[in-house]
């Protein structure tokens, strides 16, 4: 008889786990700590100060890049979420149709394609067609890679949803539209929110693809941070990075709160 053993009792597991956590988070913690360094040397602590934050906020280039990032993430998320919702509805409620399996693979494929390949492909498309919409190009590129991220939680929610609810709506004189509006959509909402938040975060911190397709004036925050580093790392980079991290953490927390409340209401 194999004896039951708690995995936590495996020798060395605990210390390995702590070591791994430290490896993951220590650099980030140090990055945040040094963003509060008052001196101008990155790795020499010379006292607490918010001067680098003040400088970052006052930097017009950073302001422009941050605004670009927000515009791109917002528009790309909105488009990707709508497209992903429609795709998920067809996949789970559209019945069997020719090419269903292929479509499913196509939607999720960008998750597996190396990002640099997507980036180069995008660049070729824009160069080849001569499409030059400034920030529009960046948005188009972001929509393409955000769709699968938005799609996954929406599809999961739809597949977990009891189809007899939609039948009950039809039984109670609901038209197709009323059924979607009053039954499917409200129940699907946590999935849609999850998909939207996920794609917003993914868009916000994308670097490789944006780097390739962004022309002058379409620089986003991650791309701008990279250009700053090339001129030497100053605590200002730390401050901007910390702010970007804060935005991501806030979004994820918001998502968590929203889905938790929703789950409690609909469980």
């Amino acid at each position: 008889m194999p004896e039951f053993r708690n995995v936590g009792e495996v020798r060395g597991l605990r210390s390995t786990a702590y070591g791994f956590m430290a490896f993951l988070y220590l650099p980030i913690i140090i990055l945040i700590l040094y963003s509060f360094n008052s001196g101008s040397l990155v790795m020499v602590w010379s006292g607490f100060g918010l001067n680098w934050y003040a400088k970052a906020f006052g930097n017009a280039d950073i302001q422009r890049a941050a605004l670009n990032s927000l515009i791109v993430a917002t528009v790309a998320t909105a488009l990707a979420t709508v497209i992903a919702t429609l795709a998920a509805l067809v996949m789970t409620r559209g019945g069997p149709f020719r090419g269903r399996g292929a479509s499913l693979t196509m939607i999720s494929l960008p998750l597996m394609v190396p990002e640099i390949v997507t980036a180069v492909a995008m660049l070729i498309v824009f160069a080849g067609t001569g499409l030059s919409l400034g920030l529009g190009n960046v948005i188009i590129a972001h929509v393409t890679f955000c769709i699968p991220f938005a799609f996954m939680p929406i599809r999961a929610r739809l597949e977990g949803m009891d189809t007899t609810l939609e039948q009950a709506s039809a039984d109670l004189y609901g038209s197709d539209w009323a059924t979607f509006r009053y039954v499917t959509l409200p129940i699907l909402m946590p999935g849609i929110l999850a998909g939207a938040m996920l794609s917003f975060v993914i868009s916000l911190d994308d670097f490789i693809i944006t780097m390739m397709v962004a022309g002058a004036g379409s620089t986003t925050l991650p791309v701008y941070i990279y250009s700053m580093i090339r001129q030497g790392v100053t605590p200002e980079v730390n401050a901007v990075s910390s702010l970007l991290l804060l935005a991501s953490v806030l979004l994820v927390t918001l998502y968590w709160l929203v889905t938790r409340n929703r789950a409690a209401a609909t469980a």
Partner: protein
Amino acid sequence: MLHRQRDFAEAMSPDPTMERKTAIDVAGVVKRFGHGPAAVVALKDVSLAIRDNEFFTLLGPSGCGKTTLLRILAGFEAVSEGAVSLYGENIAGLPANRRSVNTVFQHYALFPHMTVAENVAYGPQRLGRPVKEIAETVARMLQLVKMEKFAERRPAQLSGGQQQRVALARALAPHPKVLLLDEPLSALDLKLRQAMRAELKQLQRATGITFVFVTHDQEEALSMSDRIAVMSEGEVQQIGTPTEIYEYPANRFVASFIGDANFIVAQIDGITGGMAKCRSVRGLSFTLAAAPGGKPGDKVTLFLRPEKVRIEAPGDAGLAGMIQTMEYLGQSIFYQVDIGEDSPLIVAGRNRDDGGTPYKTGDRVSLVIGADALRMLVA
């Protein structure tokens, strides 16, 4: 003797039924799932007429096609062949949301994101009823199912029995012509189930809506229905009142599915004046009313309910036997009595005033079978 059946039906119902309007007419309906040789035939040529204002039950074992028939009536499935009409109107092409038919789903299918009141209001809202009227309907329906106090709760905050009531109220709120109920009591515990039987029956009388009730529980069917259609493997075996079905089963399936039954295989020796003399395989002889179409030489099955046999001390009258086993169930006692046939006869005795079980295993007894208790099944 078979005429008694008709007499009984007439005595039981106030008007001689045939005059009543037909609510639902199912004519030659076939339902196949899939195509070609791999197709599952869920319904094979089902025909039945459900009358206006009737509590009609579809009864049969799991997988016999009850849900499929109900889903066809609701509009969730199309027929492969045949026709369905609702109050004389062919509804074959009518989508579910345009049929004046509402369903109580087996697992209720309440909208989880809406309150009880919002659930009940859903149907009237989709029908575009005025706001004031909807509020009144919701209040009346919740009162009808005794759920007024729970109007602002969500389904997840209700017990199974309460959800059941909300599902009923929601389906009744648009005042449909026909209410379809798919095993609505199966998820409740025994006591609640028994209480709900009376309530459902009461609700049907109070609303005057035609109920089509699906169940695999024969007791449920017998206790609530005006008429029952017994189904097996996609076919209707018999349609009749609970009494007709129990007393005069059309065939062996119906006889054994509803209640307990003894079957004795026999051959008709001769018929005089409607009475047949039959001889069993082991040579026991019985005289009973001949089934229509029965002729001498025919192989028939004789059928006898356990409670229609009286056990007496051994004597000249009746069938001699020996008690093989007995099963004490409190209210009744089931004896298996060896009468020399292949299988023993099951006899039910009632618990008596003196609480006694006068017979025990091994006792020799005499079985007295009432003149009209033994029935002949042709199939």
